[in-house]
């Protein structure tokens, strides 16, 4: 019974991490400079989930954990802004500014899904609690 709560908690943690990553992506939608002050657009991060067999129960149920946080290596979006202080000075993209390649729609839908999955696991936790409460009620 307690294991069921642990399993649901592992999913809560995983979905929470996913939501953190997504909010980071949305917050950095227009970040053109990286944390070291270099002109490099932000790259979208994406969490990858994995079945966690270390917390497997005797009945075969398993939790979930974050396998890795994948950094999107796709090309940035280029916008022609020659007067921008960070515009590219030479080469093919001269006069363009590199923007993060983040699709707001994808991020928002993903965030919605993470929220629903979080709620589903909270619901299962409530069921677990109610089963435990019922079992204890035999004593009364």
């Amino acid at each position: 019974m307690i294991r069921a709560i642990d399993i649901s908690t592992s999913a809560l943690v995983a979905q929470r991490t996913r939501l953190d990553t997504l909010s980071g992506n949305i917050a950095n939608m227009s970040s053109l400079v990286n944390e070291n002050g270099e002109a490099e657009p932000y790259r979208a991060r994406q969490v990858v989930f994995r079945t966690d067999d270390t917390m497997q129960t005797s009945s075969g149920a398993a939790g979930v954990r974050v396998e890795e946080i994948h950094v999107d290596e796709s090309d940035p979006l280029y916008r022609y802004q020659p007067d921008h202080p960070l515009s590219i000075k030479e080469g093919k993209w001269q006069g363009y500014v590199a923007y993060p390649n983040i699709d707001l729609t994808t991020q928002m839908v993903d965030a919605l899904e993470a929220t629903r999955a979080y709620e589903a696991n909270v619901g299962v936790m409530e069921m677990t609690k109610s089963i435990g409460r019922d079992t204890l009620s035999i004593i009364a």
Partner: protein
Amino acid sequence: MIQGIFQSTTLPALEQMAMFSERRHEVLAGNVANLDTPEYRARDLSVNDFENALAAAIEKQRNPETHAFRSPGYLTSAELPPALRSTAQANTDPFDGPRLAMEKLVYHDGSDVNWETQITELSKNQSMHNMAIALMRSQFSTLNAAISERV
């Protein structure tokens, strides 16, 4: 003596039922936890297998000399007339078709966890647990009434 009182009731069977549904709840909770895990395959414990094993155990307790399981009042499939036999065994569930079609369905991430199915199974399982607990409670209150000679 007290052991005899408990053995003569359905309490041992109800206990097994509550324990099974608790184990199954863990498995189903694991499925919901892995809703977004790529390549994850839904896991479950077979209710049918459990019920058959439980029925066999109850039958064995009632008639220790004849170990073969046979539910009272029902014919085994060998005793049925041939015309009834096939329908009695196959296709007892009218929703078999859609269910089997959904079982083979795999989503884009290679996972086959179906949200609606898992939640339905969870609440069915919870009802099973509730029933076992409610029956246990009524068994205990019957025993209590007998002990205290008061209703």
